[in-house]
């Protein structure tokens, strides 16, 4: 197991200039515009006066999880931001609390936030009350390790494998962390913003050889 992890790590960060088949070459991160937050009121903005159900849920979360950042959004999604160290604790609370019961994991994915590391985003749903919640955490780019949620929602299994495969976030304690979409000997994680595809550029010059044929 330890060897495997070492191997994984060596795959994570290939030496400078090393190249895989189509693999990434470590380069300074390509700067695209990082998303600016809260310029104009959008559907994702914080809602001050929450409707009763959401307000109750926020109260409940604040009471049960002291020190966790929680807010209600304008599109009626709750949002929690937490540390990776409290990840499983928060998730377990959200699932088991009799008033919240976030029993349905709709989506788990990651976003490459460049300098801010990787963001792991989980969209949860409470089937009984139809409360909706976004659970976020941020893991550093150098050491993208996040505890696994497979113990809380078994359905997180493949979502985490996919995030590992395409973004390189390692989920600690995952029962079966292998590549899922790419082949097993693929080098690099394509959804990272600094992943350079070494194949020929996308815009292939089309060459009509009609003249030659005629």
């Amino acid at each position, binding site marked *: 197991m330890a060897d495997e992890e070492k191997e994984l790590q060596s795959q994570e960060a290939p030496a400078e200039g090393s190249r895989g088949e189509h693999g990434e070459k470590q380069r300074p991160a390509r700067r695209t515009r990082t998303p600016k937050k809260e310029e104009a009121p959008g559907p994702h903005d914080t809602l001050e006066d929450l409707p009763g159900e959401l307000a109750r849920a926020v109260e409940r979360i604040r009471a049960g999880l002291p020190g966790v950042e929680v807010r209600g959004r304008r599109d009626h999604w709750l949002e929690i931001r937490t540390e990776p160290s409290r990840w499983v604790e928060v998730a377990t609370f959200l699932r088991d609390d009799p008033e919240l019961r976030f029993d349905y994991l709709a989506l788990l994915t990651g976003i490459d936030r460049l300098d801010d590391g990787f963001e792991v985003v989980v969209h949860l749903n409470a089937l009984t009350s139809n409360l909706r919640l976004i659970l976020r955490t941020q893991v550093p780019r150098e050491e993208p390790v996040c505890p696994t949620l497979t113990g809380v929602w078994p359905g997180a299994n493949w979502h985490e494998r996919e995030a590992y495969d395409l973004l390189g976030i390692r989920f600690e304690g995952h029962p079966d962390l292998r590549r899922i979409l790419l082949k097993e000997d693929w080098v690099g994680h394509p959804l990272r913003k600094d992943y350079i595809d070494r194949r020929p550029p*996308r815009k*292939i010059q*089309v060459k*009509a*050889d*009609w*003249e030659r*044929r005629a």
Partner: protein
Amino acid sequence: MARIATFFDAVWSILKGMGVTFREMVRPTITEFYPYTRPELPDGARGIPVLLSDEEGNLKCVACELCAKICPPQIIEIIWHRGEDGKGKKILDGFNLDASRCMFCGLCAEVCPFEAIAMSDVYELTTDDPTTFVYDIKRLAELGRKQTTPITNYGVKTTYVGTEASGKTVPLDSVVTRPAVGQPGSERTAVSQ
């Protein structure tokens, strides 16, 4: 006793199913004999994009490259130069389209402000030579000159017939044996007719 009832139930269900299949068996078939009879395509069916010409037979394209920009797989290549010592209007030199990667989304035809490119009803692009998938300006214009209907839903119908009456499929190459772009007297069916 219950077993026997189940048994007869099963037999009855099987007989019902056989009744369905028998009724379908005596009905006429619904198959089309494709190479011999061809489906009537609706207006605006999305086949390969073609370049349309105006009344004089000149291409309408002004090389604005909007289609090349919008094309999701980036398969349109437009070659042009400025006339009159590099200052005047753009003059279209070449227009290449890689049909092997075209996904027939129709965005090029929708985005064109001059209705110079439209989706045609040509969909039989099979060939034994992959290089012929690249359609150059001559072939696209030739296909476009066979336009028979006005542009509906960004698409046109053409007189293109991929199959002769004998049922032999004619390769698309043989379509392009006609005068090329802008030459007077080239055969065409005007939109207005």
